[in-house]
C-alpha cells in the first residue's frame, strides 16, 4: 500500500459521506476493547479525522474483556471485540440499562505458521493439530505425531490464554474452549510468535492473519484440512479458522452523539474496502455490508430490539 493510493481513496470517501449538512462535527468518540480489532478502529478513526478535523477520537486497546467492563457501565461509545459478548457481559448491560448493537466488521483467519524451511510439513488436518496442541499426552517430538516427521523436539509458540485468539483456537481445533497443552511459549505480542518460529525449523505457532500476511517472507502458513489462509478462503468461510471480528455500539450514545453516528456510519461504509485490507484483515462482502447498513438504519429508526444473552 503506498501513500498516493491512500490520498486518492480518502478523497473518494469524503465525496461519499460529505453529503450531509452537518459539516462541522466537533464532538468526541471513545473506542475501547480488543487489541485485535484495534488496528481497524484506529485506521477508521484516522480516515474519519481527515474529514472532520475537529473531532476527537480516542482509540484504546485494553482487551475485549477490559473494554466490555467499561462498556457495560456506559463509559465508552464503542467496544471492539474479537469474540461475541458473553452472557454475563450482556446481562450487565441489561442491569445497567445499556442498549447495544453488534456489528461484525471484518474477518480474521487464525494462521498456523511454521519455519520457511520446514519442508516436512505443508498442511495438516484439524485432528492432527488437535493432537499437537491438545492437553492430553502432548507430543514431545514431531515424530511422536507422525513417524515421517523429524525426530526433533516440538517447539510451540502461541498467544496467552487470556486472548480471544487462544479461546477461538482451542474451541475450534482442540474442540473445547480453553483446553490446551501448557508447555509452550506464550506472549501477548504476536510479533514474538513470528520471531520464535522464524528462528527454529522445529517450531510452530498460531496467530492472527495480519501478522502472517506481513511476514509471508519469514514464515510459512500451513493449510488446515488442505486449505491455506488467504483473503479468499477466509472471506468465503472455507478456511476452518475464520474468525469474525465485532464492534459493539452503545445505542443511547448513538442517538445522542451526532459525531458517533457519523463515525459508525463511516465505519460501516468502509467495512468492505481498502482500509480493512490495509490493516491485514478480510473485509466484509458487499451483501454483508448492506446488512450492516440496514441494521444501523433500523437502530436509528427505533426498529431494533436488543437481544440480551443469558
Amino acid at each position, binding site marked *: 500500500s503506498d501513500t498516493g493510493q491512500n490520498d486518492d481513496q480518502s478523497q473518494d470517501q469524503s465525496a461519499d459521506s460529505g453529503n450531509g449538512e452537518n459539516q462541522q462535527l466537533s464532538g468526541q468518540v471513545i473506542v475501547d476493547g480488543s487489541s485485535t480489532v484495534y488496528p481497524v478502529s484506529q485506521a477508521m478513526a484516522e480516515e474519519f479525522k481527515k474529514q472532520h478535523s475537529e473531532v476527537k477520537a480516542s482509540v484504546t486497546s485494553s482487551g475485549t*474483556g477490559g473494554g466490555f*467492563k467499561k462498556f457495560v457501565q456506559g463509559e465508552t461509545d464503542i467496544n471492539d471485540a474479537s469474540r461475541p459478548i458473553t452472557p*454475563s457481559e450482556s446481562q450487565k448491560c441489561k442491569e445497567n440499562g445499556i442498549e447495544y448493537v453488534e456489528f461484525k466488521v471484518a474477518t480474521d483467519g487464525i494462521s498456523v505458521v511454521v519455519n520457511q524451511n520446514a519442508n516436512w510439513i505443508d498442511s495438516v488436518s484439524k485432528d492432527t493439530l488437535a493432537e499437537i496442541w491438545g492437553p492430553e499426552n502432548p507430543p514431545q517430538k514431531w515424530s511422536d505425531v507422525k513417524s515421517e516427521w523429524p525426530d526433533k523436539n516440538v517447539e510451540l509458540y502461541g498467544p496467552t*490464554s*487470556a486472548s480471544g485468539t487462544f479461546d477461538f483456537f482451542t474451541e475450534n481445533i482442540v474442540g473445547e474452549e480453553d*483446553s490446551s497443552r*501448557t508447555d509452550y511459549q506464550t506472549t501477548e505480542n504476536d510479533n514474538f510468535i513470528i520471531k520464535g518460529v522464524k528462528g527454529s525449523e522445529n517450531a510452530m505457532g498460531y496467530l492472527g492473519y495480519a501478522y502472517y500476511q506481513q511476514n509471508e517472507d519469514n514464515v510459512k502458513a500451513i493449510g488446515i484440512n488442505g486449505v491455506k489462509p488467504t483473503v479468499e478462503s477466509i472471506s468465503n468461510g472455507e478456511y476452518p479458522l475464520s474468525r469474525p471480528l465485532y464492534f459493539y455500539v452503545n445505542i443511547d450514545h448513538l442517538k445522542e452523539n451526532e459525531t458517533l453516528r457519523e463515525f459508525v456510519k463511516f465505519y460501516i461504509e468502509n467495512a468492505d474496502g481498502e482500509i480493512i485490507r490495509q490493516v491485514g484483515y478480510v473485509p466484509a462482502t458487499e451483501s454483508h455490508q448492506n446488512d450492516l447498513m440496514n441494521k444501523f438504519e433500523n437502530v436509528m429508526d427505533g426498529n431494533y430490539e436488543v437481544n440480551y444473552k443469558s
Partner: protein
Amino acid sequence: MDNRLKIKRTNPKVLKERAIKSALFSCAFVSLLVTILIIATLLGDAINFFTEVSIVEFLTGTNWSPSMKPYSFGVLPLVTGTLMITVISAVVAVPLGVATSVYLSEYADKKVRKVVKPVLEVLAGIPTVVYGFFALTFITPVLQTIFPEISLYNALSAGIVVGIMILPMISSLSEDAMSSVPDDLRDGGYALGASKFNVTTGIVVPASISGILSSFILGISRAIGETMAVTIAAGRLANMSVDPLKSIETMTAAMVEVAEGDIAAGTAAYDSLFAIGLLLFVITLAMNMVSQYLKSRYKEKY
C-alpha cells in the same frame, strides 16, 4: 503586655504556623487515603473471587491456570515468579547501584558526577515496554551464548532488565545520601591515616545508611511492582520452578494478562486480578514491616 509570649489562638503568626502544619498533615494523610482506597478498590472483586475459589486453594495451590483448562487458581507459582524477578533484579541493582553511588560520591570528580548521574537517571525513564523488548532482543541472545538451553522467555533476562531499570533509583538516591555526609567526618577519618576505602566503607556508608536503605526499598519495591517489562520478557508460564533459565509468570504479569486480554469481567479469571493485587499488597506490607524494623536499628545521626 506581660502575656506577650503567651500564644493567643488568634495571633496571626500562630494561626499561620498551625495552618501550615495542618496543610502538611493533610499531604501526609493523602498517602493513607490512597492505601485505603486501593484496598477498597481491590477488596470488592477479590471477595467475589473468594466466593468462587477457596482462599486456601488460592494460597496453597501450586498451579496457576485461570483461563486454560483445567482451571486452577494456585497462586504460589506466581509468588515464586515475583520472588525470582525481585531477587535477580536486586542481585543486579543493589551492588551495581551502591558501587556506582560510592564511585560518584567519593571518587569521581565533580564533572564526571555531573554527567554520569543524570545519564543514569535516564534509565529510570525508558518506557518499561522498551525494557521488555531490550531483554528479548538483546539480553536473551547474549545469555543464549552462555546458557544454550535458556528459554526465549526467561526469568533471568527479565530480572536483569528490571535490575537495570531500578539501578538509577539506587545509585542516585544513595549518592545523595552519601554526598550529604558532612566533610568533617571524612576529614576525621583521613587524619587517622585511613585510606579512601576505609573512610568510604567505614564512615561514609554507615553515616548514610538510612538513605541507602531507603533507596533499596524504593528500588526493590519497583521491581516487585514492575509490570510491562516482565510481562514481555519473562514469559507467561506460571511454574513453580526456581530455574532462572525458564519461563515464569509474575503476579503483576498475571494481572496484566487478565486486564488486557479478552477475558470477560465477572469471571473468576478476571476477578483473580484483584485477589492477586491484594495478596501482593499483604506480602509487601509484611516485607516493609521487617525492613522498617531493620532500618530503625541502623540509623546514624550527625
